[in-house]
């Protein structure tokens, strides 16, 4: 038999839970940021512990090893500088040609680095938290990248933290296409949507490339990049490689399994593509 205080506790906890869940999603999200504010000392404490751990690791590393690493990084930087010089010539040539045919000038990316704080501890979502927010100029739907390719988009923004929905999460769909190669002319660049598939749940690196035209030639290993359609993500960001393909259930479209280039479980740093002041991303970059 339940005692009276037990019944009171039971009723209050159940009521609190039901009331919280029945709130509109926007209000619930705002309440969640308030709750996160209450836990801020713990988050700060954990961040400090992480930094201390990193600095403790640096004590163990020998000076010789650091010098070797420094030399390697210098060489890498020089290589990138030379590659950038070559790219600059191509970009200026491209800009000149765009101007001649009255196309809109390509906007350079305004990148903001961010550190990954935590990854979603539940199995229901593919998301992570980063240490930048509205104070750093982050807005909702900002694309998030890593040097390997697309990571996802910013879904919720707090003052100093933001939540990123990863590629493969049901709430992060990406317009994509097969990359142009020597074997695949521009006319065969099939467009589709990257979304969560049956395999995504057990393997976060595997996503489904859906709504492809039925007659598309999809070879395993073909590169998939963002198409820029819809204006959510800039065109040409690498996503992954096709593993296999088949016709979809109803037979109207083809679909493929894609292995993502980025290992979403081992991310430490990401880059956010912030909108240029005055730029309108919704129009896309490639429109004339």
């Amino acid at each position: 038999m339940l005692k009276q205080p037990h019944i009171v506790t039971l009723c209050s906890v159940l009521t609190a839970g039901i009331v919280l869940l029945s709130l509109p999603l926007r209000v619930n999200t705002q309440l969640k940021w308030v709750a996160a504010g209450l836990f801020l000392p713990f988050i700060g404490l954990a961040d400090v512990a992480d930094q201390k751990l990193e600095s403790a690791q640096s004590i163990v590393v020998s000076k010789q090893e650091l010098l070797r690493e420094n030399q390697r990084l210098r060489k890498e930087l020089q290589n990138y500088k030379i590659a950038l010089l070559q790219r600059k010539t191509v970009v200026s040539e491209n800009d000149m040609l765009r101007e001649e045919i009255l196309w809109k000038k390509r906007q350079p990316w305004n990148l903001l680095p961010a550190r990954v704080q935590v990854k979603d501890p539940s199995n229901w979502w593919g998301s992570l938290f980063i240490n930048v927010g509205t104070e750093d100029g982050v807005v909702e739907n900002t694309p998030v990248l890593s040097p390997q390719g697309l990571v996802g988009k910013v879904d919720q923004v707090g003052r100093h933290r933001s939540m990123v929905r990863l590629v493969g999460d049901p709430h992060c769909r990406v317009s994509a296409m097969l990359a142009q190669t020597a074997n695949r002319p521009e006319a065969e660049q099939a467009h589709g949507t990257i979304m969560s598939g049956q395999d995504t749940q057990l393997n976060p690196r595997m996503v489904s490339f859906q709504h492809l035209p039925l007659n598309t030639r999809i070879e395993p290993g073909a590169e998939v990049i963002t198409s820029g359609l819809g204006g959510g993500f800039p065109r040409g960001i690498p996503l992954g490689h096709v593993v296999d393909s088949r016709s979809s259930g109803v037979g109207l479209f083809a679909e493929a399994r894609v292995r993502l280039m980025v290992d979403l479980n081992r991310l430490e740093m990401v880059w956010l593509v912030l909108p240029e002041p005055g730029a309108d991303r919704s129009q896309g970059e490639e429109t004339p």
Partner: protein
Amino acid sequence: MILIAMGVVYLEARWTVVESGWRGQIDLLPVFAAYAALHGRVGVMAGVAAIGGCWFDVLSANPLGTSLLSLFLTAYLLHGMHEVLLKGQMAAQFFVCVLAGALNPTIAGLILWVLGTQPMLGWGTLWQVLINAVCCGLAGPVLFLILNQLDQNLSYAPTAKPWNRPVVEVKRSKHYHHY
């Protein structure tokens, strides 16, 4: 106990290497709910569910309140066993934690599905629930041991009353003879 639970949840969110290996994220929060339930404290059950659950939801994309409800319902269902179970036995602790590890994600998944938030549910969920249940079962006895020790060391222990000692209470009659 709640502080340890919060630390464990934070480590789960930081160490994603386990997830890559086992194809599923491990959540040990149900073990703490099971501990509170078996020790028959409804207030502690509510505390673990409210603070631990909110902390979990803050670190994840769950709507706020999902883990609060799932943890409290898990603890409440297990609370019914606290009088019939030999909670000092490791086997009993293992089975209760397995049950908690399976119940909590099932209830949370059900709540998210009812809310229509489109979580990643599928056949893989069965594997993830199974893995979580086994891991909770294995971690349960160890965490129970730590929590019992903490409970013993940190909680108030009544001191023996000096006037209540049996030596003092012995009464001698006047016919008492010392041999």
